[in-house]
């Protein structure tokens, strides 16, 4: 540490301007833009509005809907397995509940299924990498819940549905904001170490698009702290976990129910058959698809597997046209480009300023608005800073935090951010952070109801299939607010666990089948879709171009 030079020479002229304007800006509040201005800004500059980034789906329940090309590529792909090569006669795991995904939603579902009476050894968590390897662990800023005296679930509801451009499913929003209080209480009982004041009340901050200070945090390791407590509790309950074993296809039975999944051991490539009375999808989102070439804040495993598998059995998707770009991804240094710079930095008072040291947007507008304003500043007005690798970015003036809240605030509340940049010679208590939007969240996904049941296009529940967390859509509409995804995974993970526990009391599974995969292949043929792609892809491939172009298959 300390051996890296920090910002290059050519940045300093601009950094000095940021320093010169800082004192004046401390008193300056940038105006909130009008609804009309917002709409125009989004239409002109948000990547979702670029028509060439999308195409219409040619197959499946959402045929005709416009989605990002990278999403369409996977939804229109062949299956990863050949049903004729899989024997369903031999069942490797026969359980009541299979949970696919070991992040916040999966862990929460497992615990609540267990609390609801399903014995630990009748549950199985299957996860692609290690248990807990998920975006949940990387969430920094916080989790929303309306518990302060001047706040209420009603205000939280209005913030969520306004932030989502009124496209959310209102009953899901209601579940989110009501359960929020129950979830924080549950966490308190489990021993999650939230930031608290001397009386024991939570220290809460504003987030983008919230009308009250409602963000509960555990420094800037909020997701890590929640996730590791949930993991500890799952391990204490001795709920079985299969690591490095992602699902590659859902199983159905001859009665048309979802009946488990085919997993693959990533290290030995052996397939495993899991029969389950209820299956919970908790597989997360799609950051690693790098929509429109953007870098991402997401975990290595965020490859949209759950959406692909659910789509093949006829699940309806909602808002898949909508992608969240987090306004403040690191734009420098190259080693950490795209990594998250938490919204909490703005929540604590840091402004966004251009190369001239001037503000151009109120820093706590909703995420899609701020992201669009940054893109406009860099590419429309040419007032960004250009890095040695050709990236552009604007300044997030973090030293303001130390002036507003006192010296030491950053080290105390933004320990992860401070450490992240210090590793590369940048002291964010003294120097601003260069940022540019980064691919952050899958706003849409598998449609669910308030019981976390996955739905067909006609609104009927898919028997035996539940879903929770980022893999689902409808909760956040077209734009998720900060602090609502940690909440989402807990609220709907819990609901999925409780619903699945109720379901398995009466469910019985018939003969297992992969006929839906055969039907899918026939549909591809019928629609005239020709492709070599197979999905789910499970992991991205970042191998260098030289080695990829020279790799040969030697069968070992």
């Amino acid at each position, binding site marked *: 540490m300390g051996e890296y030079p920090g910002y290059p020479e050519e940045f300093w002229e601009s950094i000095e301007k940021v320093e010169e304007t800082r004192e004046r800006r401390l008193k300056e509040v940038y105006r909130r833009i009008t609804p009309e201005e917002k709409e125009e800004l989004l239409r002109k500059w948000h990547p979702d509005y670029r028509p060439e980034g999308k195409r219409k789906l040619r197959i499946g329940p959402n045929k005709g809907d416009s989605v990002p090309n990278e999403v369409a590529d996977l939804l229109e792909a062949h299956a990863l397995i050949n049903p004729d090569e899989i024997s369903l006669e031999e069942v490797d795991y026969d359980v009541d509940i299979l949970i696919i995904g070991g992040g916040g939603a999966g862990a929460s579902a497992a615990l609540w299924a267990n609390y609801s009476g399903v014995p630990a050894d009748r549950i199985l968590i299957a996860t692609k990498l290690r248990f807990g390897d998920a975006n949940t662990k990387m969430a920094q800023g916080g989790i929303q819940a309306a518990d302060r005296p001047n706040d209420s679930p009603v205000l939280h509801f209005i913030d969520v549905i306004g932030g989502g451009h009124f496209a959310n499913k209102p009953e899901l929003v209601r579940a989110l904001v009501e359960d929020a209080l129950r979830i924080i209480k549950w966490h308190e009982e489990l021993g999650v170490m939230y930031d608290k004041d001397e009386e024991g009340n939570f220290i809460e901050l504003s987030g983008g698009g919230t009308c009250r200070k409602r963000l509960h945090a555990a420094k800037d390791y909020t997701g890590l702290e929640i996730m590791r407590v949930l993991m*500890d509790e799952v391990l204490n309950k001795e709920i079985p976990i299969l690591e490095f074993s992602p699902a590659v296809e859902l199983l159905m039975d001859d009665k048309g129910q979802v009946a488990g999944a085919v997993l693959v051991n990533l290290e030995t490539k052996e397939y495993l058959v899991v029969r389950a009375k209820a299956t919970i999808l908790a597989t997360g989102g799609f950051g690693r698809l790098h929509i429109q070439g953007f870098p991402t804040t997401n975990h290595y495993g965020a490859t949209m597997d759950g959406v692909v598998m659910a789509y093949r059995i006829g699940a309806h998707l909602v808002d898949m046209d909508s992608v969240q770009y987090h306004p403040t991804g690191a734009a420098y240094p190259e080693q950490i480009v795209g990594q998250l710079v938490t919204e909490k930095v703005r929540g604590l008072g840091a402004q966004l300023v251009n190369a001239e040291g001037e503000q151009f947007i109120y820093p706590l507008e909703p995420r899609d608005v701020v992201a669009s304003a940054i893109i406009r500043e860099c590419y429309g007005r040419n007032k960004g800073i250009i890095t040695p690798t050709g990236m552009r970015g604007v300044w997030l003036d973090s030293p303001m935090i130390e002036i507003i809240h006192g010296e030491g605030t950053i080290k105390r509340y933004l320990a992860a951010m401070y450490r992240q940049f210090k590793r590369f010679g940048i002291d964010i208590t003294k120097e601003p952070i260069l940022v540019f939007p980064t691919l952050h969240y899958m706003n849409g996904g598998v449609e669910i109801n308030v019981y976390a049941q996955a739905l067909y296009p006609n609104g009927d529940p898919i028997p035996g299939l539940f879903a929770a967390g980022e893999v689902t859509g409808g909760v956040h509409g077209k734009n998720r607010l900060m602090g609502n995804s940690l909440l989402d995974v807990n609220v709907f993970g819990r609901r999925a666990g409780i619903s699945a526990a109720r379901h398995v009391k009466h469910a019985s599974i018939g003969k297992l089948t992969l006929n839906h995969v055969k039907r899918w292949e026939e549909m591809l043929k019928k629609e005239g879709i020709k492709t070599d792609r197979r999905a789910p892809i499970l992991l991205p491939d970042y*191998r260098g171009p030289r080695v990829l172009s020279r790799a040969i298959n030697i069968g070992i």
Partner: protein
Amino acid sequence: MRMSQAKTTVKQPKMKMVTIYVMGKKYEVPEGLTILKALEYVGYRLIRGVGCRAGFCGACATVYRFKDDYKLYTGLACQTTVKDGMYLVMIPFVPAKKPVYDIEKLKPDASTVISIFPELTRCVACNTCTKSCPQEIQVMDAVQEILRGNLEKAAHMVFDCIACGICSMRCPAEIVHYHVFQLVRRLYGKYIAKKSKHLEDKLKALEEGAFKEELDKLVTAGPSVWKRLYESREIEK
């Protein structure tokens, strides 16, 4: 605006290469890459030793040495930049059993922690754990605080632990610090930190139906009402 296109519009300076040794095997990689990206650059498609890629998950613990330097260095592959002459290996897994306990039945004191992790008393205060921590946690001091019964202080000291396990592999007393620390943080969070009165009050109001009527109306109100309410919100400073 397409990021990859944006990059190609600017002339790239010629890459300077450095030599690294991956488990003894020599490779040339561009200067400035993290160890993780360097491994991918030379052709590894990782399953183990990779996770969040952002310093939060502890999957990519790595140890390395340089020629003619006795010292064993440690770091996270996703956060450590390659240096010329680096001999490295990832240690993506630590064999360590997590003891099972019922948090509801524990007392927040040193004897609880020691009864679950008796090896804690074997700490010889060598400080190797602290020196190896990529999060710069005062690991040994925290162990000593726990032994003294100061769980509150210890819980805060070890808050930034990402459970990479490097300390536990270096420890001559065979302590599995990250499991110990998890217990200590939970004991603090559950028993020592005060409970929130605000939360309790609001939760009581919710369960008594204080928001029911308004939410019933809101859910069915439709976009025009939501829009009006959203645009007329009073925003707390």
